[in-house]
């Protein structure tokens, strides 16, 4: 992008940068076509202006309200969902640590009763974070585990319950129904719970994440996204189209395997990182 003039070649380079960041062809075309107009109307005169305009446009798209939903309810219930291996359980450990550091008490619910040693995995994280884990045995009803945790947290006056769920592809109706059931059962005890339904998306994933967001979004009312694995070379650009189309905010990002590797999403920082990739990750 170190050119003097804006020409088709430069626009092609931008297209490549965007598509290779997983922004997706249609979203990319939409953004670049907009800019092409501004270029022909001489609003954007040189590559630097173009680049700044692009950054600004992307930041505007991504910078929507991403505060956690507020309530006076206690406990505050967070349901964590997503496809297999996206980083749900690890993100829960990170959230637990974050809430604890903010002076809140936390309880985890071992709602993944399906995957081998999923309960043990959460228990180890619970131990490391110093928070209790409510569990039943493998194969038991996930909704029952989460319900138990909410009851137990209520009686113990715990501030936050974070429920783990088994990974599931959004195309599996029976598994999506199981998630709805968790939500339904929790509502019996607390009508406004779960207060947050967080969808964990892997930054390495491509366009399928759009389908994930749409289906999880409509089926169980996702309130926000945790974008994980940003510590790799993938840029997580798929989130641009998701936020743009669905107005679904990214609430947190994950950037590593330890409990400290989570922070609130920052649109400006994310956009800067998108543009960095141009020089850094050139495979040939």
């Amino acid at each position, binding site marked *: 992008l170190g050119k003097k003039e804006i020409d088709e070649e430069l626009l092609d380079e931008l297209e*490549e940068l965007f*598509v*290779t*960041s*997983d922004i*997706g*062809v*249609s979203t990319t075309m939409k953004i670049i076509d907009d800019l092409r107009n501004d270029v022909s109307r001489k609003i954007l005169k040189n590559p630097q202006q173009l680049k700044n305009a692009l950054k600004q446009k992307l930041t505007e798209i991504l910078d929507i309200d991403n505060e956690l939903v507020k309530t006076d309810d206690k406990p505050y219930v967070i349901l964590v969902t997503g*496809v*297999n*291996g*996206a*980083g749900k359980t690890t993100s829960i450990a990170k959230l637990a640590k974050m809430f604890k550091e903010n002076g809140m008490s936390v309880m985890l619910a071992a709602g993944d009763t*399906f*995957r*081998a*040693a*999923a309960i*043990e*995995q959460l*228990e*180890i*994280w619970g131990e*490391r974070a110093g928070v209790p884990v409510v569990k039943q045995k493998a194969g038991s009803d996930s909704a029952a585990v989460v319900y138990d945790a909410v009851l137990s947290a209520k009686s113990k006056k715990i501030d936050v319950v974070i429920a783990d769920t088994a*990974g599931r*592809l*959004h*195309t599996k109706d029976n598994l999506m129904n199981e998630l709805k059931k968790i939500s339904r059962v929790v509502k019996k005890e607390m009508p406004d719970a779960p207060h947050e339904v967080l969808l964990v998306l*892997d930054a*390495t*994933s*491509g*366009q*399928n*994440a759009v*389908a994930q967001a749409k289906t999880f979004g409509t089926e169980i009312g996702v309130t926000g996204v945790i974008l994980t*694995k940003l*510590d*790799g*070379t*993938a*840029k997580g650009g*798929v989130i641009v189209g998701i936020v743009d189309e669905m107005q679904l905010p990214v609430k947190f990002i994950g950037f590593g*395997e330890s409990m400290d590797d989570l922070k609130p999403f920052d649109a400006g920082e994310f956009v800067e990182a998108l543009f960095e990739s141009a020089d850094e*990750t050139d*495979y040939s």
Partner: protein
Amino acid sequence: MFNTLNEKLQSVFKKMRGEARITEDNIKEAIRQVKMAMLEADVNYKVVKKFISGVQEKALGEEVLKSLSADQVFIKIVNDELTSILGGEDPSASKITLSSTPPTIIMLVGLQGSGKTTTAGKLAKHFQKNDKRVLMVADDIYRPAAIDQLEVLGKQLGVDVYSDKDNKNAVDIAQKSYEYAKKSAKDIVIIDTAGRLHVNNELMDELFNIKKAVSPDEILFVADAMTGQDAVNVATKFNNDLDISGVILTKLDGDARGGAALSIREVTGKPLKYVGVGEKLDAFEPFYPDRMASRILGM
């Protein structure tokens, strides 16, 4: 609105009907449609460009436009080319080579959460069905409960698992598991390694040292079918560091188009061997290049 690539191409070719040959000019729109379809399927940008120019070359001069089903002839050119790149020409390359001096050692590597541990269980079941004596090795010393996870799978299958929770050296564990496998006359050893980023040099070195210690017959790169554009960077690095012998693509039971299959194949030149189509241990199939080609094209 035209939804599938098929429909889009039909409409493109309808407009061209009557022209005698495919020329660079009249094929432009059809090529663009294929390009879009492949990008939507997450095939890497550069890989798409290269593929497209190959297809264009093949199609140019073909007398397909006179025929009533020009779109079908064109689709066939695209489809055949894609199938052939994905491994159509040599299906035997997609088998796992068993060593003439057992045990055959298979090492699974890949990014975090791609499906290595589950795939270890699936491979174990696959070989177990063929009356092989299998050992799974719990060589992920980092992820919480990774060892438990493999042990649960071993118990489910009735397959022996080598583990050592007190050993914090993955190379040493692999070495000792190999000795154990020889002593207990195993036919197959499947080493489950920890997920890692290709840019983590320390952990990539660990894999290299495991490889050096036990000389695996197969090093299989386990990749998630939902992977996007970055698949080329990851696969290139794993292949450069470890000279992988093949690829297993997981989570194909969803609706991901799986363009990563083409990207990985293209940058590594290594065969795709199996696919994962579910969480259960029998949800495991051989890789079929033709099915994958149709899936990527959205047909």
